[in-house]
């Protein structure tokens, strides 16, 4: 189940990387911020879930676009890694701000859809879990369609492969990058909304996903959408397997680290095909 959420977050990370060559460490925190907005609108103010979801997604997308415009676009020509360190600052800033506004305490977020979908023997599948899985699948398909068939996707692919050529062919790299950050923020918001009811929801909750999402993206080759998504699904399964077999703490994190080491040592460019 969680694999699908990691998958959509990894897709967003790779999309942003393709368009602006930055690993966005703040991505999860755009989602975190969105979920808090959902909480404020839908639960604290009691305006209902649909306005809450809309407000959450718009906030996450706008925040991401704003960060691109104000910070990342200034660092386009900076040496590698600098922009990534800046996203680190953004991530911390968002966490500090969220703590300031909403406090750091853990809270319970009611499921978007109550109840259980079905039982298979002893295994109970809740609607929240099903929703997470479904959202992951829908996002994956939507991203694929956008990337492959829309004019925006065409521009993204052009910039990802040959930025100089794309600029000569009239593609404005700045808008492509802003657009991708907005899409990345949107997906992060969705991921946050579907996973928050399944875990303890607090300021740092998306940070927990970061290691898994980064691993999926890097193992997949950083520029490969398919590779990142598949790697994320596999990680989801591995996580379940580890959780069932042992209660040893931190084993998953150790596996993530070793996996990245092994894969990148054998294949520095990652496992995926670069274009898709």
């Amino acid at each position, binding site marked *: 189940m969680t694999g699908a959420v990691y998958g959509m977050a990894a897709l967003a990370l790779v999309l942003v990387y393709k368009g602006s060559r930055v690993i966005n460490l703040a991505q999860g925190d755009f989602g975190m911020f969105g979920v808090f907005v959902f909480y404020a609108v839908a639960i604290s103010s009691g305006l209902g879930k649909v306005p809450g979801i809309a407000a959450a997604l718009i906030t996450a997308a706008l925040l991401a676009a704003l960060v691109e415009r104000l910070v990342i676009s200034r660092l386009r020509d900076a040496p590698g890694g600098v922009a990534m360190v800046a996203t680190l600052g953004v991530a911390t800033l968002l966490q500090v701000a969220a703590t300031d506004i909403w406090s750091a305490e853990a809270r319970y977020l009611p499921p978007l859809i109550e109840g259980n979908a079905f039982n298979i023997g002893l295994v109970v599948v809740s609607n929240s879990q099903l929703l997470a899985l479904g959202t992951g699948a829908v996002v994956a398909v939507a991203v694929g369609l956008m990337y492959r068939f829309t004019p925006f996707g065409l521009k993204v692919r052009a910039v990802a492969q040959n930025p100089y050529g794309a600029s000569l062919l009239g*593609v404005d790299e700045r808008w492509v990058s802003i657009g991708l950050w907005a899409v990345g923020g949107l997906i992060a918001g969705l991921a946050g909304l579907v996973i928050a009811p399944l875990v303890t929801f607090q300021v740092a909750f998306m940070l927990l996903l970061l290691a898994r999402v980064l691993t999926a993206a890097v193992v997949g080759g950083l520029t490969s959408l398919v590779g990142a998504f598949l790697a994320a699904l596999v990680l989801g399964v591995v996580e379940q397997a580890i959780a069932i077999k042992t209660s040893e703490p931190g084993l998953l994190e150790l596996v993530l680290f070793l996996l990245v080491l092994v894969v990148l040592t054998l294949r520095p460019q990652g496992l995926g095909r670069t274009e898709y």
Partner: protein
Amino acid sequence: MSAPLLSASGLGGGYGADDAIRDVSLHVAEHEVVFLLGPNGAGKTTLLRALSGTLPRCSGTVALGCEALESRGPHIRARRGLVHVAEGRSTLIPSFTVREHLDLVARNATELRSRLTERFPLLRERQGQQVGTMSGGQQQLVALALGLLAEPRCLLIDEPSAGLSPVMVEEVLAVLEGLRADGVAMLIAEQRVDLALALANRAYTVEAGRIQAEGTVDELVAGGELDATYLGVAPRVEVADA
């Protein structure tokens, strides 16, 4: 001669800290075909990039008609009609098909596209092929066609003959001649003097990032400027077989 269409003065700049071009001034009139001649590394490509706004660091002025463009980005310049056709392989997106390239540049301009496919049958025949799998010459033609789709007032063309077989050079030459007949102004960076002899109204020689001489190609040949630029022969000295 009519008023200049494209004019630039005091152009300087480069990619890193070094100035690859320095204090370059030039102009191109309406309907005029001007060549930039010089060996590789002389700064011709850099000069075209300075004009199209794709040089990372650049100073000086660029104007098209009476509009100053030096502070404008490459997209704006292209929209105003100052269109840069870089060497095929560096402009195109290798995994894109011809059709995807056309979509990228002019999605809705169906009429323009059909007119263009008449001039470049290649575009119709190969529209489903990934350009990365095409020969250098075919890529060059695709790049040229894409440049024309932007409805240029002045085309900046980089090394149209680079790496092409003699047959392909003939084909590219025919296209360029057609454009000249249509009255499209062009500034062409080229090493090969024979292409300039066939096409140019006028030429500049470029050496070490500066313009060394200006004139018709015949004048430049007769004056020994080309020998000087290309072979390091001191100018105005008789060369045995020239």
